[in-house]
């Protein structure tokens, strides 16, 4: 039997070889230490991310997860809107605004484009100024100023309500909705709405006798009185002509006379048309009227 001696199991030299020693020192030098400490994990992370994104399926999945997460965040109760409050609008406009916004509450405030909503509200004809902002407690607050109706434009069927500037507000089927508004008509009348208003203003003393204004030939106005009389106004400066009429009426009660047409188209040459009676004679009442 062979003798087994412990001395045969020579112990390995515990000293590191020169190369190993140098390498370990090199690894411990500050720059390398940092590079290894931060660099290696970074490289590993970068490579694993790269491999992960090589697969389309993974990208899809990640997108889903991300959008899921996004929804979860934006649908937190803190960000949800539950109601719409509208200030300064009549009932009909209120309904209209709700319709045009078309929001289904509850809705997240992240899904809302306030500027766009604002545009949409502004695009409604009756709205003059609008403001939209979020209020605490999950309320979207919209504040509007309606345009004030100033005129009724008679159309073939029904009426258009116009603002002072002739802007369209709405259509109504009958006068009764706005009994106080003066009526205008004629082709292109809406474009001269401000002039019409000026005329009405100038003629305010006799407003109860006026039936309406007619825009003639897209350039000038006729006043139709309730009595059926017609006052033809000039194209330029109709207010001055009205002044004249009023003065004449004051002095001569011209409007209460039996005259069908007051032609003021040429301020320098006023013409009055007297209705012929059944005999084709001129009415004698007109005698004494001078220009």
């Amino acid at each position, binding site marked *: 039997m062979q*003798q087994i001696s412990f*001395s045969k199991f020579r112990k390995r030299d515990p*000293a590191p070889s*020169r190369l190993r*020693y140098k390498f370990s*020192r090199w690894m*411990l*030098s*500050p720059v390398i*230490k940092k590079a290894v400490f931060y660099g290696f994990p970074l490289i590993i992370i970068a490579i694993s991310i790269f491999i992960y994104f090589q697969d389309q399926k993974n990208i899809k999945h990640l997108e889903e997860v991300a959008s899921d997460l996004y929804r979860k965040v934006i649908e937190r109760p803190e960000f949800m809107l539950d109601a719409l409050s509208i200030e300064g609008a009549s009932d009909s406009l209120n309904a209209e605004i709700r319709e045009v916004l078309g929001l289904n509450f509850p809705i997240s405030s992240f899904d809302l484009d306030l500027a766009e909503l604002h545009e949409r509200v502004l695009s409604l004809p009756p709205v003059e100024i609008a403001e939209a902002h979020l209020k605490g407690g999950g309320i979207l607050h919209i504040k509007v100023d309606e345009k004030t109706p100033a005129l009724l434009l008679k159309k073939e069927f029904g009426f258009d309500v116009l603002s002072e500037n002739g802007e369209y507000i709405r259509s109504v089927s009958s006068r009764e909705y706005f009994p106080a508004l003066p009526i205008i008509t004629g082709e292109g009348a809406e474009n001269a709405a401000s002039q019409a208003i000026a005329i009405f203003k100038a003629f305010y003393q006799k407003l109860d006798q006026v039936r309406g204004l007619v825009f003639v030939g897209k350039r000038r106005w006729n006043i139709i009185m309730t009595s059926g009389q017609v006052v033809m106004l000039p194209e330029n400066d109709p207010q001055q002509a009205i002044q004249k009429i009023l003065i004449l009426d004051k002095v001569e009660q011209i409007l209460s006379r039996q005259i069908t047409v007051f032609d003021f188209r040429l301020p320098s040459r006023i013409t009055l048309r007297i209705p012929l009676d059944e005999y084709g004679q001129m009415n004698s009442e007109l005698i004494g009227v001078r220009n």
Partner: protein
Amino acid sequence: MIELYHSQRAMRAMRSAALQRGLIAVLDVGTSKIGCLILKFDGTEEKIDGDGVGSLAGQSGFQVVGSALTKSRGIEYGEIVSMPETERAIRTALQSAQKLANSRVDHVIACVSGGSPRSYGLEGGIDIKSEIVDDKDIAEVLGSCGIPAYESGREVLHAQPVNFSLDYRTGLSDPRGQIGKNLSVDMHMLTIKEKTIQDLAYCIKRCDLELAGVASSSYVSALSSLVEDEKELGAACIDLGGGTTNISIFWKKHMIFAETIKIGGQLVTRDISMGLQVPSSTAERIKTRNGGVVATGLDDREMIEIASETGDWEIDRRIISRSDLIGIMRPRIEEILEEVRFRLTSAGFDDLPSQKIILTGGASQVPGIDSLANKILGQQVRLGRPMRIHRLPQAYSGPNCAGLVGLSLFAAHPQDEWWDFSPRSKNFNGQSVSRVFRWFKDNW
């Protein structure tokens, strides 16, 4: 001499560079173990004043971040006999210490126990021109010391000003700023065999490290083992190492004598190995496990089993009593201590006011050595352990690490040495060269 001055100054510069970087290694290259500590200096030097723990002051300025202890190789009697082996051992120690510290060190302060150190007391004196003593005067007075004729193959390891006297006032530790006419200095100089240092420097260089300082093992062991009072009143520190026994005498806080005896614990081991016919590893084991120097009746009955591996059962399974072991160890240890006694006496230790003797080093762990030392060296013997330094592992707190700990203290608080004072260039050169020359002429 000039060369030495420059190389020492270069090492000083290296050390301050290392301290600036905050990391330095200390290396105790002993006969039986190589120890390495990596010190981290944080620059905060708290002074613990007031409670009389003077020797602890300033020690919180550094902490141990890495440490390693490995069996030494290729060293006999404190001197390198096989460079590649020693280099490997140093590499082993440094690598594991660096691993622990998790950082790399480039500067190392080492101590050597061998190299037959020799002590000289020097004297010098000058007349002061400017009345008030300043740095230049100190440099000049140090330069004026008579350099003894040491052999050509030796180098100066330490040259420490021990005592300054100014006009009959003596015992000054720092005369700068004082007024006087005549300044004289006592200096302690230690020379060591040039080759010992060169070999060590070469090994360290082979490990890609810079040598930032060397110290004598006797000196650093005493630094860590003596308390302030002992240093002040006078004491001898005996470092009983593996291959060498280092003696140093301190007085007035300075080392005034150092000596090395080339016998140590390994000789005891060899005696056991020869006396009991066992391999030296077994001898070392029973020495450390069961060793002692004072036999009692009980020791006759305490049996020690000796296992060796010769294959012969009769030899491999022997039983000896502890008294037998003590009988082998005691004469050798007595011899060591008697040699120490002889050296101390010839150094004039008996003239010191205090006769305190501190035993440290690995071989001082032999049980009962203090009572034996009491008989041989005198009554005031105590066993010394190195003082605590911050974050030093428990395994390094034994007396065999006195040198290592002392070296750390030395690295943190180096004693002023001659080369710390910048010389007055021309004067210094001319004087010392002529002095050395004169010495040569007188002695050869």
